[in-house]
């Protein structure tokens, strides 16, 4: 599956459009990571546990979007966008969406 956030896949031509596909995941923070991050919060800087957690979750959202595109018979998703929203304290939704297309 080819992904891009421009209107085409560079170096390929779009032959068919399948419409919008999306994938999302809602994640809460792991308690152990929260404690470690709480300590890290005193000295500042990167909260590595959270960086990993969010990037894993985003990959999951992308994987779901890709599965939806595959089900439609697409071989690429163009103009992919991400959005993050905080739902309740400690939980966040990661959302990925784009246009499923067939390229050659």
């Amino acid at each position, binding site marked *: 599956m080819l992904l891009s956030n421009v209107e085409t896949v560079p170096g390929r031509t779009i032959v068919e459009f399948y419409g919008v596909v999306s994938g999302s995941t809602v994640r809460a923070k792991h308690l152990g990571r929260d404690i470690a991050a709480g300590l890290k919060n005193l000295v500042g*800087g990167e909260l590595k546990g959270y*960086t990993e957690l969010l990037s894993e979750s985003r990959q999951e959202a992308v994987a779901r979007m890709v599965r939806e595109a595959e089900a439609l018979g697409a071989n690429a998703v163009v103009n992919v966008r991400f959005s993050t929203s905080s739902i309740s304290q400690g939980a966040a939704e990661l959302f990925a969406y784009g246009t499923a297309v067939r390229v050659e």
Partner: protein
Amino acid sequence: MDSEALPLLFGLGATVALLVLGFVAGSIAERRHYASIRQRERDLLRLPALTFEAPSTWTVRRGALVAGSVVVSLDYFKRFLAGLKSLIGGRLRSYETLLDRARREAVLRMKEDARRRGFDAVANVRLETSSIASARRNGKGVTGLEVLAFGTAVAVDQLGGRSGPTEPG
């Protein structure tokens, strides 16, 4: 008298200790981080990031989505200072440098992702910032800011002389 003053003194002592710890550790971490950012930015100068699509003069062979992200937080001292400053308003310098570091770090990680996968430039870069605070009732708890940088990495044929990416300036 003494038995009442003792817990108060202890609480004050702990706060001061946290402030000192935050100040010392935070300043050292910030200086190191900036040094690392500047070094890596120089290394990746030949892999430009554009906020628009690849120019038509480039011969693009292939492309793929690349991303980089980072979650950062303020140290105890700066958060205390920002809390005081927000009473009177104005510029919160400690947040400005934090966001600056986070954005540059995210862009660098995105570029490193592109270089690792053999690309020459990143087109259509987008930056997103979101707050992932988890405040507890007492107003403490973890506060963090996530910055995500993503774009379409492209592999460009450099054969056409001016068609390849060049250093800015």
